[in-house]
Each structure stands twice: as structure tokens, then as C-alpha cells.
């Protein structure tokens, strides 16, 4: 539909993925209004980029745009918004794995790290992988994850804690930490 410049595609996109996109933006920005603007920006970007872009997976393409957009907004106004979204909390959890370091990570090292993390996540059971991505990619809250995955909140926390430990161990074994 987008390839044919059919404006109904945007409406259909919003109907189908709007809630998901708003949720991602809201978790990062902690603000309903910003999340809505973020979604609108993302839809505009989708309209402007497809075609010529021809993503293999439209949903992934869309949510990546939403996340990038929300992260940009967060960084631009982080002094006002800090603490309102889930992002700072999730980053705090990750900071136990990656303590602040002066060490510079080269582009090659970043690629290796991404490859290792991708490899690690692919080897996880699907439920754990989804939990990790939903928490640390889209910064979903514990209650949100508990509801979506049919788990108790403390089980979500325990599971994520174990995944983080496994990731730390894995990255160390790979010589990346």
C-alpha cells in the first residue's frame, strides 16, 4: 500500500501498530503527549522513506524508527524528562553489567559486541529473549511485562536478573568484557 502511495496505509499502520509504538515511546519519554508526537513523526518518516526503502519486516522497521525518534527526543530534553520514563531504571539495571568505563570501544569492538549479544539472545528460549528485548530495547515496565507474559512481577525481575548474569558471563567468556 505504501509503495502505491496509498494514504490508507498510514491509517492502517496506526490502527495495527499504534498501541505498540505509543507504548515504546511512552516508556522512553514517560509522557503521553510526546509519545503521540513521536508516533506521528515516525509515520511521516515511514511515508517519506517507503519507497524507496523496502524493509523485510515492516513492524521492525516501524518500531526502530519510533525508538530512535523517542531516544532523540529523550536526549534533547532529558534534563526535564529524566526519571519519568522507564529508560533510566532499565539503564540502572544494565549498569551493573557495564560499569562506567573510560575504556574506548572501537567500531570493530562494537560490532563484535553486537554480534555476541545477538548470538546470546538467539540462544535464549523465546520467552526469555522477548522479555529481555521488551525490557532493555523498548524499556517496558515490570507490570507491563508481567501482564503480557502472564508472570508475576517478581518472577519477571528474577528472570531478567538471571538473564543479565548469564549475559555477563557469556560476554566475559567471549573476552568482550
Amino acid at each position, binding site marked *: 500500500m505504501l509503495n502505491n502511495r496509498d494514504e490508507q496505509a498510514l491509517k492502517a499502520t496506526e490502527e495495527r501498530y499504534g498501541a505498540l509504538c505509543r507504548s515504546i515511546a511512552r516508556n522512553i519519554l514517560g509522557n503521553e503527549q510526546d509519545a503521540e508526537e513521536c508516533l506521528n513523526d515516525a509515520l511521516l518518516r515511514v511515508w517519506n522513506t517507503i*519507497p524507496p526503502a523496502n524493509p523485510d*519486516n515492516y513492524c521492525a522497521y516501524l518500531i*526502530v524508527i519510533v525508538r530512535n525518534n523517542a531516544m*532523540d527526543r529523550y536526549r534533547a530534553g532529558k534534563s526535564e524528562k529524566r526519571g519519568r520514563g522507564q529508560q533510566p531504571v532499565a539503564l540502572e539495571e*544494565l549498569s551493573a553489567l557495564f560499569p562506567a568505563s573510560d575504556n574506548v570501544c572501537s567500531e570493530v569492538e562494537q560490532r563484535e559486541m553486537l554480534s555476541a549479544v545477538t548470538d546470546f*539472545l538467539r*540462544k535464549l528460549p523465546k520467552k526469555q529473549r522477548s522479555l529481555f528485548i*521488551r525490557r532493555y530495547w523498548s524499556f517496558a515496565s515490570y507490570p507491563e511485562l508481567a501482564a503480557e507474559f502472564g508472570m508475576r512481577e517478581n518472577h519477571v525481575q528474577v528472570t531478567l536478573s538471571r538473564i543479565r548474569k*548469564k549475559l555477563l558471563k557469556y560476554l566475559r567468556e567471549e573476552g568482550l568484557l
Partner: protein
Amino acid sequence: MNAAEFSDLLGKLPGDMLADAFQNTNLHPQAEHDKSAELSGTALPVPRPDDKFSAPRWITAAALAACMLFAVGVGALLLRGQRDDLTTQSSLADSSVPETVTEPPEETTAVTGIAGSAATASASVTQQTETVSADVTEEASNVTEQPDASETDSEDTVQTTAASEARQTDYRAIIGHNPGGVYLYAGEEPDYSNLELTLDLKNASGDTAYQADVFTVGSGKFANLYSLDTGEVNPNVPGTYHVYVESNVGAEDDFNYSDREIPQIGLTPGTVHVTMDWSRNVFQVHVWDENTGLMIGRGQMTSCAEIAIPDDGSEQICTLYNLREGHDGTAYEFEDPTVAEITEKHTDTSGLNQVFSIRGLRIGSTKLTVTAPDGRTAECIIHVTHIGF
């Protein structure tokens, strides 16, 4: 790397993995693959890595479930037949007496036997189904070594917690490390004393307490628990070398743990006995030529002529190598200061280099020139670009 950089890195996860993670969310309907193809105009479905493993096993599991239902059904029918017989007998004897009371003992035994075998069959099939599920999980995860606490019921959790809170003094251990490296000029003696190592403890279940102790090579602490292999390093020839730190498998030692209590593995302050498992850590040793000029790079002594920076406002950390001295007097100058800016700079642990951050201000390119107080200069082209999907 820190948490924020790691989070940025996660932003580059493959699209199929992201789509898979969000597929079952209740925030959008199912079958989004088909619909997304329709919306975007592409008809290529994204392969899902789990499918090839899960499909045949689900079929097997479904077949087993069908067998289970069949067994239960047969059991129920037999049971009903027996009960019909009994009812008929009891009707003949006394229709007003409930059948359960009128069942003769031997008949009751027979009925129980049938029900019991049906239940046994059912349990057996259920067990097989669970085994298959466990296999699927195991096969899909090579890194999953421990049972998932989230799957245990509350009673198990209580028991586990109670057991784990018991004081434990014997642990397996490995040597880990904190980031670091060694820099020196050719002809100098390398100094490994500042390399920072960690002692990580594991209990019998494999739960790990990372960084139970942090120490430097120079402290001499736990020297019997690891070996430092510096054989690769030639301090007289410029280049990058590696130093390996391997734990001495089976070596034992006692140490005084003084940090906070970690009840998950029963670790409390006090004397702890450790036995070493295998582990290996690598540090880089950079031997420089005295005549090496200033260099701009992005870590691990990689000199860069060009550096790309995202336009999303995030900062790119770079290093000015071989500054030697005069860190305060170093001048950073962009040919076009509207493209990028320096946001932070500080001396690294070796004291020879200066770490600095660049932030892109707008899409474009500009030349960065760094001048040291002694007049040496380094140049690098900075490209601020959109690094997106």
C-alpha cells in the same frame, strides 16, 4: 562500554529478532507478518529461527496430547461400562440404595484398577509431553544452564530461599578482569601491576557472585590462584601484544569476604574457601615507537583518518594517543564548528592518552585538528551522518 552505550547497541539488533519479540505482545494483533507485508508492499516473510525447531516438536506434543485424551477417554468409557454393570446389579438388588454403597468390594477394586490405569496412562503421557517441552527449551538454549526460578511455584521458591540463606563457605571461583591495558615506549619495561582482576564466586547451583573481590596484579593477592602469561610481549619492538591471565584450575585458597551479604548464593562476610575453575582473561599491551606522533582513534590504539558520528545527539568517545604530557593545554579545533563539538575530555589511566567525546550537531563533514602543547598535531575527518535502520 557503559549501560547507555550498550542500550544504543541494542538499538541495532536484527529486525527479525525485534519483530519476533513483539509478535506476541497484546499491543497489536497476531499475524502481523502477513499484514506488514501488505502494508509495506513487500511480500517477503521474515524467517523466524525458532520455527524450524518448534514445529515438529509441537506436532509430536500434539500427538502425545491426543494419545493422552484417547487413553483418558477409553478409561472413562470402561469406567462407565463397569458402573453401568454395577448399577444394573444394584437395581436388581435394591434400586433405592446408592450405587457407590452397593458396589461389592471386588467390583470396587476392579473399577479403581481401571481408573488407576487410565490415570497412570494419562500421567505417563503428560510426563512425556513435559519431557518434549524440556527438550525444546534445552535445544533452543545453549547458554541456559540453570533452572528458571520464574517457573517454580511459590513453595519451591520458599524452599530455595530458605536453603540459599544458609551460610556457605566453599565456592568454586574464576578470575575475571576490569577494563584496562598497558602502554609503554619501546625499550621500556612493561608494568603490569595496575591490571585489575576480580574473583568471581559460584555456588553448587552455578549462581555467581561477580567481583566478590577486586585486586590488582601488583597487590600480589591470590597470586597462587592465577598465572600471568606475558610471553607474547616484546617490549623492544613497537606493536600490540596480549597478556593472558588464566586461573590455576584446582588451586585453593581462603579469603576474607568483607562486602555486602549476597543471600542468593549464601555469601556473607567472613572467611570463604575457594577452588578455582578455568577462566582466561586478555589484556592488550601497546608498545609505541618514541617517534610515534599524536594519533586520534577509537580505542585499542587504532588510528583513524575518518570517524563517523550519528546525528542523533549521542556522543562518540575517541582517544588522542601518545599525548605524553600537557593534557590541559591541548587544543581541539573543528574546521566547521557547526558540524560537531567536543563535549568532554580527560586523561586515561595510563596517563599517556586523552579520552574525549564528540557530539554531532548537524549532518555534514569537517576536519578536526588537535594540537599538543609541544606543537605536534593530529588530524581526522569527522562525518556526522544518520545511522539508522
